[in-house]
């Protein structure tokens, strides 16, 4: 072999030759002292470039100075919703019966659970005997993990901890948690499966783990095991077992069976139970379509599948109905709500005093099965309050036949639909290049994005599921990547809104295309509100 060109040697040094070329070049290098010398030079050249061009450096405190000027992001509590329902999730409430508390135990727990940083339910529980100081710590690799306090309720268990170094300085408490690092064990040390766990940072210094017991049949006694191998940037092993006993919490808990049901439009609502726990009040209810409604929706779904294909409709269809309701006392004072338009100045559903919400169902969503919801609220503060749930809104999917055809060159294009005035502002290709270290092949990830903006008269309906069809009849699945209704209004009082759609299936933007709206989520404010007492 003749000596390779310099560019080839550079490719080799830069690590961008393919395997075959690399093998050939390496064979040559073995027998060519000249090229070996060249190669050595090229490597040194890279070293010198790196050495030179990495100077100068900034002072140590550069980052501190910047971060001091920043506002922290507001911590968002994880709220596990096992289905996709968009931003508005399920229903709502607050209220409950004030629990009798042994004052002798009050104020046992200090620290983060008594601060404004945690939700009001935990704060209320911190003053009761279901809250206990733990004060257990373990040190490894110069890092100490200390669990401070525990709140063990029948609905959820929360524990607070801090991370410090040898000098007692508080460090970042983040734990990249998974099933291995935090477990709930029963009395036989058997792990409780499928438990939902969230983590949040509070006041910069405290980490709080919260374990939801909503999925668990019954748990009375056992322990939480923290087993961490990476903490504050260091590898090590930190294990703490924290005993958990819910006897006190069960003593305070009151469960009221409701068994109330009603049909609104074509949705049947069953209110099953209210659980008044120390740190939350949980409302358990089920939503299902009436047989007629189910049949009708299934027929419409099948027609859309025939038109656009099953794979396009199936994963994105907004199958489930939802309700909006509020909690009131007998004087009509609203104590909590979710998914309702309680504030007329807002263009989207709002919530108040909500701690969390979950939904469960069996089988395939496309069979339009019933959904069991559990929503939890801050406990009521006035023991004498008699509470009521007032259902005032229904949300359900509606199949739509709306479509609009446009040519990319004629954008922006404005259209009206169902209380919306929307403008298709742009359709654009976006290319992401994969960041593989290898030279070739490079993965290109291309999407086509459509942006719309405008105003909505009617509050809330969500134009949810779309498809694109080109002139040849080819159908492209569309992800609805953003569907926003803002507080801001125009001079006619309409709410500003924006919709962003994207498709990954389009090689090129066609000369002409049709956007089909397949399904929207309709909001129905109820003419007659439904009111049921929460104590029997």
């Amino acid at each position, binding site marked *: 072999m003749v*000596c*390779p*060109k*310099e*560019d080839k*040697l*550079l*490719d080799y040094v*830069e690590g*961008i030759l393919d395997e075959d070329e690399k093998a050939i070049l390496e064979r040559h290098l073995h027998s060519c002292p*000249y090229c070996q*010398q*060249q190669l050595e*030079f090229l490597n*040194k*050249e*890279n070293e*010198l*470039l*790196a*050495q*030179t*061009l*990495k*100077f*100068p*450096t*900034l*002072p140590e405190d*550069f*980052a*501190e100075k*910047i*971060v001091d*000027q*920043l*506002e*922290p*992001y*507001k*911590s*968002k509590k994880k709220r596990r919703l096992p289905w996709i329902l968009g931003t508005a999730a399920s229903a709502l409430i607050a209220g409950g019966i004030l629990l009798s508390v042994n004052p002798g135990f009050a104020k046992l727990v200090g620290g983060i659970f008594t601060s404004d940083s945690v939700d009001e339910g935990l704060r209320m529980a911190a003053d009761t005997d279901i809250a206990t100081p733990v004060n257990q710590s373990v040190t490894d690799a110069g890092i100490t993990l200390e669990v401070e306090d525990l709140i063990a309720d029948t609905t959820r268990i929360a524990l607070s901890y801090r991370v410090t170094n040898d000098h007692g300085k508080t460090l*970042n408490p*983040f734990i*990249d948690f998974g099933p291995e690092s935090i477990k709930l064990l029963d009395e036989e040390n058997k792990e409780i499966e499928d438990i939902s766990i969230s*983590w*949040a*940072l*509070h006041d*910069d210094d405290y980490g709080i783990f919260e374990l939801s017991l909503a999925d668990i049949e019954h748990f009375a006694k056992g322990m939480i095991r923290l087993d961490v191998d990476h903490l504050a*940037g260091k590898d090590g092993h930190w294990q703490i077992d924290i005993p958990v006993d819910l006897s006190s919490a069960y003593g305070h808990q009151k469960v009221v069976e409701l068994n109330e049901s009603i049909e609104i439009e074509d949705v049947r609502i069953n209110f099953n139970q209210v659980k008044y726990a120390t740190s939350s009040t949980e409302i358990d209810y089920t939503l299902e379509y009436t047989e007629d409604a189910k049949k009708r929706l299934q027929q419409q779904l099948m027609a859309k599948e025939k038109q656009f294909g099953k794979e396009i409709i199936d994963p994105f269809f907004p199958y489930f109905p939802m309700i909006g309701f509020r909690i009131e006392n007998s004087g009509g004072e609203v104590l909590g709500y979710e998914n309702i338009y309680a504030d007329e100045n807002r263009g989207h559903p709002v919530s108040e005093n909500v701690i969390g919400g979950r939904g469960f169902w069996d089988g395939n969503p496309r069979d339009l099965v019933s959904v069991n919801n559990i929503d939890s609220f801050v406990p009521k503060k006035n023991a004498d309050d008699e509470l009521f749930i007032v259902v005032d809104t229904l949300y359900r999917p509606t199949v739509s036949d709306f479509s609009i055809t446009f040519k990319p060159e004629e954008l922006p294009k404005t259209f009206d639909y169902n209380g919306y005035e929307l403008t298709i502002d742009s359709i654009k290709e976006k290319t*992401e*290049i*994969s*960041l*593989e*270290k290898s*030279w070739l092949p*490079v993965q290109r990830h291309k999407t086509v994005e459509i942006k719309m903006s405008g105003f909505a008269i009617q509050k809330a309906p969500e134009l949810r599921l779309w498809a694109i069809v080109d002139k040849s009849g080819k159908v492209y699945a569309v992800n609805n990547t953003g569907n926003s209704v803002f507080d801001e209004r125009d001079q006619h009082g309409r709410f500003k809104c924006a919709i962003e759609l994207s498709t990954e299936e389009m090689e090129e933007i066609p000369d002409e295309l049709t956007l089909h709206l397949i399904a929207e989520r309709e909001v129905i404010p109820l003419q007659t509100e439904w009111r049921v007492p929460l104590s029997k």
Partner: protein
Amino acid sequence: MDEDVRYVRQILAGNKRAYIHIIDRYKNPLYATILRMTKNPQTAEDLLQEIFFKVYERLPKFDQKGSFKSWLYRIAINHCIDQLRKKQPQTEQIEEAVLHSNETPEVVLLQTEKSRELEKMVSILPDDERTILLLRYANELSYAEISETLGISLIDVRNKLYRAKKKLRKNVQEGGYSYGVSERG
């Protein structure tokens, strides 16, 4: 999980101090790069601060499945280009004192000879070639990351980088200082 993404999640969960890790990781290579784009230490530091504020503000928009590094560099380089466009170009070299001010005398001494020559040559490269050189060697970006940051093809990255390196060698030789290159092939 990418360590940067882990920090981003912490920041978005309310822990602004996690941002220190990200700044500390990128501040020096970025400063070295921006300094050679602006030729002025104060402007470079100001621009870098603006970049870190901008990145922080945009964190909720970062797609956590993507590369944080590429995303950050795209914001950084675009911000510099935008700002520099508004200002008169400066052509002077960066003072040596600035380049080595944070180093111990020994290191400065070792650096001086070759680095000074190289620095001179880098400063007279066309902007695009200099930027690619800096992204590759000061910031250790891969070809794909440079391609994504600057919005040019991978072939362009390679060709411009090689062209820049050849120019450096040629200039160094013409300037009477050779660091051992031989022309052949």
